[in-house]
């Protein structure tokens, strides 16, 4: 059972994010970069598969050179090998371009299952997993909360509106995982020491046999043209309800009609 995990390095979600005054991006200075939370769960699930079925866990990441730190986190957790796809020509690539690059790298490996986090907490896109499955020509299931692997087959559970569904999926396959699938382990000290020494292979688009017109900015079909700060809150009102019933009704009406979360 060889598992490939696609990971991403993202800003820590617990930090404030500031948009650059010209809207060209976010201020990166002082940001703490971490392994995307959902991907941590994907790494954990891969390690559990290896413990149960044997085989290897390889992490693949697209990003700038600093993203090797996210790979080292995964290695320190116990992954066997790390691959970084890093190329300035990927600047301006869209998610399909990134998925193409990942697919090329994965096609060179021997694998049964590809795991991804359900989404990356920076762009929230949730596009790479299914796109990767398409480029690899295998089935997929997204946002899974349970994974059991049998002979040539996986049984997964995924959240759908108001419930859950259990699916049987033929392997090889791509799965994207929810945070509730497991509790990720902490890197151990020996793991951290080993991860520090470990060589991480870096691949460029040329190494993958991809032209910029296939995966770079030229290939992109969507482009983020501007970043804005989050919308400002509307001026609020303070009410003094006659009784608790009225207070509860007013709050519920607000949640339903204004915030639209009910």
């Amino acid at each position, binding site marked *: 059972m060889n598992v490939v995990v696609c990971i991403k390095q993202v*800003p820590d*979600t*617990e*930090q404030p994010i500031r948009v650059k005054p010209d809207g060209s991006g*976010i201020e990166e200075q002082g940001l703490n970069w971490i392994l995307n939370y959902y991907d941590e769960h994907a790494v954990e699930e891969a390690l559990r598969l290896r413990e149960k079925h044997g085989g290897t866990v390889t992490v693949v990441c697209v990003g700038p050179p600093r993203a090797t730190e996210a790979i080292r986190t995964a290695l320190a957790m116990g992954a066997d090998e790390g691959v970084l796809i890093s190329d300035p020509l990927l600047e301006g690539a869209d998610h*399909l371009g990134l*998925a193409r690059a990942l697919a090329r790298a994965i096609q060179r490996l021997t694998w049964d299952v590809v795991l991804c986090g359900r989404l990356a907490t*920076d*762009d*929230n*896109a*949730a*596009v790479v997993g*299914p*796109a990767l*499955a398409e*480029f690899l020509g295998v*089935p*997929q*299931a997204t946002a899974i909360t349970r994974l059991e692997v049998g002979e040539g087959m996986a*049984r997964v559970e995924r*959240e*759908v509106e108001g*419930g859950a*569904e*259990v*699916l*049987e999926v*033929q392997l090889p396959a791509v799965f994207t995982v929810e*945070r509730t699938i497991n509790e990720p382990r902490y890197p151990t000290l020996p793991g951290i020491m080993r991860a520090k020494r470990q060589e991480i292979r870096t691949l460029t688009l040329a190494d993958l046999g991809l032209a910029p017109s296939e995966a770079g900015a030229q290939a*992109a*079909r*969507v*482009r*983020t*043209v501007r*970043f*804005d700060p*989050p*919308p400002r809150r*509307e001026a*609020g*009102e*303070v*009410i*003094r*309800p006659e009784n*608790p019933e009225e*207070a*509860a009704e*007013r*709050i*519920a009406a*607000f*949640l*339903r009609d*204004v*915030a639209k*979360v*009910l």
Partner: protein
Amino acid sequence: MREIWVLADHAEGQLRRITLELLGKGRALADARGARLVALVLGHGVEHLASPLAEHGADGVLLADHPMLASYRVEAYTHAMTEAIREHRPWAVLVPSTANGRDLAPRVAARLGAGIVTDVEDLWTEGEQLMARRPMYTRKAVGIVAFVGEGPHLAVVLPKVFPPADRQEGRSAEVRRLAVQWEGVPVRTREVERREVRRERVPLTEAEIVVSGGRGLRGPENFALLEELAAELGAAVGSSRPPVDSGWVPHDYEIGQTGKTVSPTVYIAVGISGAPQHLAGMSGSKYIVAINKDPNAPIFQVASLGVVGDLFEIVPRLVEVVRRAKASG
């Protein structure tokens, strides 16, 4: 003018509300461009959906009605949808951001080499270009995205951002049937079970709703009140610093300068006075609802809705009201 499509999501023979929301937005986009609005229906035994789709604004209804589409299976749905798009070349396709919409649309985009934007909160045109707005960085920033090229453009639209289309009784649409070729289409997933589940606790920093308690809760046992409300709302539970310092809740509950930064759609501050250290962690929330008996609490200066009153009386009743609202759908 190339058509604008809405992928109709339906369950148990009924259109989901988000389909009506997308029809409303799709109608506006189509009118602005002088284009036809077409609803694409994938399923089996779905003919009866044509009439409600027409009554909610579709000029045309495309039916892919086949036993292979009886329940959602990614490969069958991807095949039917890409065949439909290849044959008719719509300019834009609005897809509901449901579990299956999010599963399907990126795969369709990959097969077609089409641009895709997810988590769309607004859509508009600038000249010939389709534009979308979406939240990023757990709602700490907003991205404005342009679709590049000729299309088809795939926009996966969040629920509840557009009002549902009004119903015009008797409005009709041209109904077309898609002849999908099924030979050689692999379907390697199979649904074996489906069941209702309660929503799992969501992580604080990614929750859409956060219910948070402060000193006003008076003791650890009263956090149960908030847990109950959070369970009804599918929310995460947090706190200001005093409950953490008093040992009522663990440190990972804390929101503020020494805790977590959250930016949910709604932050419900219960018995929280609103110290600047706390505001630093939650003022990025889209809406803030505050319940506090002290009318001079600083939290009221940042609240979208401030309620002066006794939390011990208000919260249990709010739980009841929310429960009733959910029961009546």
